[in-house]
């Protein structure tokens, strides 16, 4: 049992931190977020150069031989810098699916992903599906040797920036059946794909994506077209762990800025950080962050364990991070007072990002329910 980072991981962290410090300060970020594009492809190229995009992949797949812990390191730094570029969508999610792909798919897509040439988004949520990964009205029907996809995907984060989409669709069964879920790689410029792009409240970009009889070949299928829910769950659990790491980074900075602000801001002639009520609240914020880090390590380290253990770990982490993020976000604003409400200070943006992280891939309620159902199933098995 150990909690140390490898030399490579420490190096990634340090060089990424330096890059963010130099080129991703808060004012720069604001300008980028407000720009027409909303991100910086040239920053993406630098991430590729630094090896971030290669870090979590095996050497066999063209990567640097790391894994989820490397992704965790990257995402934590992204969280600290409120980085908007789609590492989660491209490297963790699309990369996670492609690792399960054929060697042809890896050759085609993974190499282009690692070089920074192709950017991906994950089109899974639907207008009425809430957080249920199997609740799909989007269909993929056999069409010769290939498939024809139709449907509407909601709030696809990073889609305006993506060249390719990873799409979940129902190939068989009823709307919420566990069986009959397929995963497809679709170029965004494929005929029949239309998007409606928009900014999100936390400074990213997303799209509603509509598929109208979009034709793809057999080589677009990742895994078993009729039974890939297990794969989708596995990859989203990996994304949850990475998202938790991002949250930890954002919490850390929000806490630090709040403590710092409380030392300088005076009320009734005293720095507000001298008021015991705020001291204890910041102590609780510190505790929430520490517990979130613990849960992120836990979930990340358990990604490779058996299915139930992995799922429970991911859901447990998402619950604690959702709760901790809400507390830290709200109290950061409260302690900053009126200044915390202004767009001009960074703290409000950390608050907004932490708020949105809770609802990505299922909020506290969703994961508390998932954890509870998994526990009940375990208990039933144990009782047999």
């Amino acid at each position, binding site marked *: 049992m150990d909690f140390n980072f490898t030399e490579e991981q420490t190096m990634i962290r340090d060089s990424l931190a330096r890059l963010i410090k130099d080129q991703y300060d808060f004012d720069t970020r604001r300008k980028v977020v407000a720009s027409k594009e909303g991100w910086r492809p040239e920053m993406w190229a630098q991430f590729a150069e630094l090896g971030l995009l290669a870090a979590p992949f095996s050497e066999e797949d063209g990567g640097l031989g790391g894994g989820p812990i490397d992704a965790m390191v990257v995402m934590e730094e992204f969280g600290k810098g409120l980085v908007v570029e789609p590492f989660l969508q491209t490297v963790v999610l699309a990369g996670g699916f492609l690792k399960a792909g054929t060697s042809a798919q890896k050759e085609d897509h993974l190499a282009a992903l690692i070089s920074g040439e192709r950017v991906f988004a994950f089109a899974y949520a639907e207008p009425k599906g809430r957080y249920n990964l199997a609740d799909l009205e989007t269909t993929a029907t056999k069409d010769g040797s290939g498939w024809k996809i139709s449907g509407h995907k909601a709030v696809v984060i990073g889609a305006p920036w993506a060249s390719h989409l990873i799409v979940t669709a129902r190939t068989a069964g009823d709307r919420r059946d566990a069986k009959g879920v397929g995963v497809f790689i679709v170029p965004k410029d494929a005929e029949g794909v239309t998007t409606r792009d928009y900014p*999100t409240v936390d400074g990213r970009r997303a799209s509603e994506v509509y598929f109208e009889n979009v034709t793809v070949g057999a080589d677009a299928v990742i895994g078993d077209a009729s039974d890939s829910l297990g794969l989708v769950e596995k990859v989203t659990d990996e994304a949850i762990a990475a998202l938790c790491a991002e949250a930890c980074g954002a919490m850390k900075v929000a806490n630090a800025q709040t403590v710092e602000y409380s030392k300088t801001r005076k009320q009734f002639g005293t720095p507000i950080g001298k*008021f015991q009520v705020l001291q204890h609240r910041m102590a609780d914020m510190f505790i929430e962050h520490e517990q979130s880090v613990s849960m992120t390590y836990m979930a990340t380290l358990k990604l490779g364990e058996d299915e139930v253990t992995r799922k429970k770990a991911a859901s447990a982490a998402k619950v604690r991070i959702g709760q901790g993020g809400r507390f830290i976000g709200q109290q950061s604003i409260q302690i900053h007072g009126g200044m915390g409400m202004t767009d001009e200070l960074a703290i409000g943006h950390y608050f907004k990002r932490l708020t949105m992280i809770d609802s990505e891939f299922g909020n506290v*309620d969703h994961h508390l329910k998932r954890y509870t159902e998994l526990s009940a199933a375990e208990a039933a098995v144990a009782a047999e």
Partner: protein
Amino acid sequence: MNLEFSPEEIAFRDEVRAFIRDNYPKELVGLGNREDLTREQFLAWHKILGKKGWSAPAWPKKYGGTGWTSTQRYIWSEENARVDALMPLPFGISMVGPVIYTFGNEEQKAKHLPGILAGDVWWAQGYSEPGAGSDLASLKTTAVRDGDHYVLNGQKTWTTLAQHADWGFFLCRTDPTAKAQEGISFILVDMKTPGIEVRPIKLIDGTHEVNETWLTDVRVPVENLVGKENEGWTYAKFLLAHERSGIAGVARSKRGVERLRSIASQETLDGTPLIKTDEFARKISQLEIDLTALEFTELRTLASEAAGKGPGPESSILKIKGTEIQQRLTELTLEAVGNYGAPYARGMDHFGSNEIGVGPEYSNFSADAYFNMRKTSIYGGSNEIQRNIISKMILGL
């Protein structure tokens, strides 16, 4: 002890309800409480009420108030909240008006009260300063006597909707040697006076709701001083107590719960309306129960005010619980809309669209409302200050 309305009160309710039904501007229906309305939209209902003589329910009759009992005022709020009416803004009616009729001279009353009542004059509040927040006593804006004028210099902040304001009321330091709360004066300022600059502050939800107001050698006639020089703190405290009452927002939160119920009936979780899922239904119940507790605490406070006791430190409970409930309401609404909480509804024009939002109509602004409501536990004396008040004034700690 009983909860019944008297026949007279029921008749009053029916009258009020009919008046609102017949006169509330159709074009305002459904606009709710959004911060980016036009000046005309903000004032439309106020002007109608002004004509009817109903714009100031809490003012004494002799100054143009309605002379209603506290129960009537309660009914009035309830009935307006039923249609989500855009009520007159507080700066004139609830803040400066009572200060003027209580501490002002006859000229000031004659000059200002009619415009406030009619909704013709928009007032802005010049209390807070950068770095001061709930601590008004440390303010730095100065008013120096120069002949028949005061010359004002300084910077105010959080001046809500000052972009529309005709007049403002400002706390300024008139005696620089006095300490803390002393040496402050309460001065009325025509916002068109040279030297006033109003700069927008953008909030985290993207709205332009508040401003910085910069005062540079602003010359204000001495007759605009309210009450006595250097005694502004007394009037400021009086105003803050008035501001706190009504802050519970029970009627509006009730409408918010109805809206939340409606959203949770339309959103589904695995095919079940969210409102029928155990967990979410309980959260709504808890919120409703907390709101009931607040409502009856407010009713008790009203009854005790009606019995001649002014709004006391107990009103801090209404501030704390009222804002906690408003915040919880927006939090649950955001939670209810799921993935469609993420789109930034005001940002569609980035992409050449003049549409608002992409999800169901009710999902628009749900995140923004949640972000915006965080202000309620900060302003009007932060909730921490309110707890200080309770512990000192009531518990004697």
